[in-house]
Structures are given as C-alpha cells and as structure tokens.
C-alpha cells in the first residue's frame, strides 16, 4: 500500500497540489488523486463506523443510569453519536461512497471501527471513564482534523469536536461524583479508570516508527501530528485531571519530566492493541452481530419506506400529468 501510494504521487493534479500548498480546502468537485479519495473514504468511514458502534457500549447503560438526570445526559450523548455518524457518512458520500455500501463493508468486516469499543462496559463508572478518557483521546485526535485538507470532513469535525468536548466534561463529572461518593462508588470509579487507561492510550495508534500510512497522510494534510505527539498531548492533558478527580492512573512510571515539560509514561503493550485490532475477539463479534441484527430486522421498514416513496412519486406524476 505504501509503495503504491508513493509510486502514484507524481500523478497528482496541479490544482490539487496548489490547494494543499496554500493550505486551502479541497472540495468534492475539485480534482484529486484517486488514492487521496480512497484514503479519505476509508478514514471517514472508519470514523463513522466508530460513532455508530460506539453507541452500543454506552447505550446499554441508558436503561440502567442511576438518576434521571444522568439518563437524560447519556441519551443525549448517544444521540449525538448517531448524529456524528450521519455527518460523517454524508462527508464520505461527497466522495462517491454510498452509506449503504459503507455499512455493508462494516457488516462484513471489510472496514473496521475503533477497537476501543471491543472492551466491555462493566459498570456505571465505565460510562464516566469512556466520556473522560475515550472522548478525551478522540478530541485530541480530532481537533487537528478540523483543519484537514478535505473540506466536508474538516467541517464535520468542527461540529463533532464541539460536542465531544461537552461529552468529555460530562464523563469527568460522572467520575468526580463517584470519586467523592461512597467508598463503593470510589472503588467503582478507580476500577473503571484502571481498565480504560491503557486502551485509551492505544487509541492513538501504533508508535510512529511502526505507523504505515502516516507519511502520505501528513503530506496530504489529512494528518497534522504524529501518533506519538498526539498521545503525549493526551497524557499531558489528562494527568492533572486525574489528580483533580482524586483517582490514580495505573502506570507506576508516570511522572513529570521538567526537561521535556511533559509527563513520562510507561511502555505500552502494543501486542494487546494488535490482538484487539485484528478484530477476532468475542466483543467484536457481539458488536457486529448487534448491528447486523438491527439492520436485518429493519429491512422490511426500509423496503416499505422506499415503496411508499415510489408510490408517492408516481401519484404526483400522475396528478401533474392529469392537470397538464
């Protein structure tokens, strides 16, 4: 793949190069290299899939939220995720990929979603930890995408990032309440953070020296910072928040490095990341089965909607023909 992209690079249209050079946005009607288009479709689709699969682990807790206020906040959050999915599929559609086709790629495993959703959501505190850590990591990843070279994607990200930072604050608030609640609630919060910390660090992808697609994406203005840069940014942002929560991050090597002006942290067990990414785990199967099940149970509804639309169009045409 890397080779293919490199060998094609010289065939980039001049107009495309000029837009990139001026740091302006590429729009759907602009000329663009086929690999740029395909890379973007893959990335936007994976992002969209992550939003809709990400509804599941939290959605489970809508029914069990321990107060009505929290239930409302969680409902609104999961609704936002569905909305993000919509923006993103729409952005991918401007590149010529239909939502149907992308969903099919998700359902059949040809396209992936973020492997963070293949960890189980075991307690109410997980809803807080997902908001604080997972949405926190997502924001760090996504803020630079608001300046992505492809216009529709960049504009979708602006909207999404605003909502995500809201979600992150709500997650923090859930954990704060638990950490300052009963001893059982505190333990629940600490347990969730213990389980979600390392997976959230892995959300930034493999270390820079092992990252395949990064260079070309940088050149194309799709990616602005390296995986390790973003990961460091997330750690530096999150450690003080953990202190404010009164919770411990499960890394004995975590300490402030005054020379770097950053926190040092322990080595990440990337073998686990690769295992989860391979997507042959039970939760991966469960998430996809849930999605495919809902899609199949809804087939008759989608067929009815199309049939109704077709009838309506036919009737309108008939009426207009009659009055013409």
């Amino acid at each position, binding site marked *: 793949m890397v080779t293919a992209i490199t060998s094609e690079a010289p065939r980039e249209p001049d107009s495309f190069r000029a837009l990139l050079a001026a740091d302006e946005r590429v729009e759907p009607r602009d000329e663009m290299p086929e690999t740029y288009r395909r890379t973007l479709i893959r990335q936007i689709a994976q992002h969209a899939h992550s939003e809709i699969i990400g509804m599941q682990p939290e*959605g489970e807790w809508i029914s069990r939220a321990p107060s009505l206020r929290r239930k*409302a906040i969680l409902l609104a959050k*999961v*609704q936002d995720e569905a909305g993000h999915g919509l923006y993103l599929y729409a952005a991918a559609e401007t590149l010529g990929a239909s939502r149907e086709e992308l969903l099919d790629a998700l359902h059949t495993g040809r396209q992936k979603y973020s492997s963070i959703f293949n960890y189980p959501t075991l307690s109410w505190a997980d809803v807080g930890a997902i908001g604080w850590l997972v949405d926190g990591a997502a924001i760090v990843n996504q803020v630079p995408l608001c300046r992505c070279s492809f216009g529709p994607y960049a504009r979708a990200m602006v909207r999404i990032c605003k909502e995500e930072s809201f979600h992150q604050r709500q997650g923090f608030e859930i954990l704060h309440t638990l950490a300052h*609640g009963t001893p059982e609630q505190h333990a629940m919060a600490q347990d969730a953070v213990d389980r979600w910390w390392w997976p959230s660090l892995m959300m930034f992808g493999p270390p820079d020296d092992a990252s395949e697609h990064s260079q070309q994406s940088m050149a194309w203005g799709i990616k602005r910072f390296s995986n390790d840069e973003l990961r460091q940014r997330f750690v530096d942002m999150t450690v003080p928040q953990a202190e404010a929560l009164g919770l411990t991050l499960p890394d004995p090597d975590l300490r402030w490095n005054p020379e770097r002006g950053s926190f040092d942290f322990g080595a990440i067990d990337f073998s686990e990341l690769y295992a989860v990414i391979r997507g042959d785990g039970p939760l991966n199967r469960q998430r996809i089965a849930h999605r495919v099940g809902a899609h199949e149970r809804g087939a*008759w509804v989608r*067929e*009815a909607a199309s*049939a*109704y639309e077709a009838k309506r169009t036919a009737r309108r045409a008939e009426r207009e023909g009659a009055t013409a």
Partner: protein
Amino acid sequence: MSVSPPAAAMLDADDLLALADDALIAAQRLGGWVSLAPVLEEDVALANIALDQLGVARALLTRFGELEGRGRSEDDLAYWRTPAELRNALLVERPDGQDFGVLVVRLLLLSTAQLHRYAALRSVPDPTVAAVLAKAVAEVSYHRDHARTWLLRLGDGTHESHDRVQRALEAEWPYLAELLTPQTGATVRGQLADDIAAATLVVPSEPDDPTPYAGGREGRHTEHLAPLLATMQEVARAHPGAVW
C-alpha cells in the same frame, strides 16, 4: 394542528402521577431502541423523543413530590417505587419485541392521547404544571407527526409492512382506552381513525372485555413492568443513599 379547546382543567395528584409515569416508562422503552433502529436517522429521532418524554416525566415527578410534601425527589419516585406504586397505563410498559411496527403504532396512540390531554391541561391553575405541559404540547405534536409519517409509510408501503403494521394496530388498540379521558376520547379516536384510514389501514374493533387492557392507573400492571423496573433501578438500588 387542531387540539381540544381548553376547558375547565382539572388535575389531581393521581392524574399528575399517571401522566408522569406514562412519560417515564415510555422514555425507558424508547431508550432501549437506541442503536437498534432500522435507519440511523431514526436512532436520532427516537433518542430525541425519549429525551422529550423523559423531560416531561422529570418535571412532573418533581412537581408531584413537592405537592405530596413527603420530600420525595424525581429520583426517589423513579428508583424507589415498586411496580404496584406506578400509575402508568399498560400500553407503555409492554415489550415491543424490537418490532418497529409495534413501536410506531404505540407511539402514535400515546402521543395523540398525550397531545390532547396536555393541551386540555395547559390551563390548570398550577403554574409549574401548566408551563411544563404547554412546552410538552409542541413536543408530543412532533412525536405524533413522526409516528403518523411512519404509519403512512408502513401502511401504504409493501404488502408485508401493511400486514405487520395492521397486526400491531390490532394488538395495541385495546390499550388506548386507558390513556383517554371523557374530555379527550372522541377527539383522539377521531384523529387516529383519520390517520389509520390515510395509511390504508383499518381501525380495529374494540375488545369484548376491556378489563385486561387497563389497570395501570390503579397499580394493577402486567407481568412486564417488574422486569422493566428491575433493570431501570438496578444500579441506584445497589447503592442506597448514594449521589450520582
């Protein structure tokens, strides 16, 4: 949209609780649909409707607690009552078996009944309740439009969807009566008859014996409410006195 004219509006504590519990349990069932809708737009719409219902439930439960004067909050009322203490109509507690046709029919019946009930009660002397319901009229009017649009698509869609939604209508129709009052009954039934006809469907006949389709207002529920509440109350009850 035409709604019943405001009349001498009466609302006692039992009625208030009944309205709150209808909305609460409807929100709970709707919340279970998120990530399971037939199209993504519908996940958004159903979450939105669930949020509206939940909002009304919270406001009315809070007000009920204040009027009751026993210091019960919205959460005390939602999380610490037993099934027999709930006052919702049976329609909203029944499981829908993840059948979108059942969901649509039930939402249409509920929102139409709520619309006219809320509209009639906008003029109650209690300013809090009046304000909540005035806002809610606009919301349930949207819920009703949404459900009616789907009823049209399903009723006048394919043969399969027509049959499925007609069957759902037959199953849910007997539960409508419990949501009606003498003041709203005729209007609600009239509007629903129009909607059903427009969707090329048939208004079901009334059950010979209406008894088993009502009872929620007196705390006589179906076998389905206890499991629903067990799920809803699970976390809260595992930590008595905790703040969330």
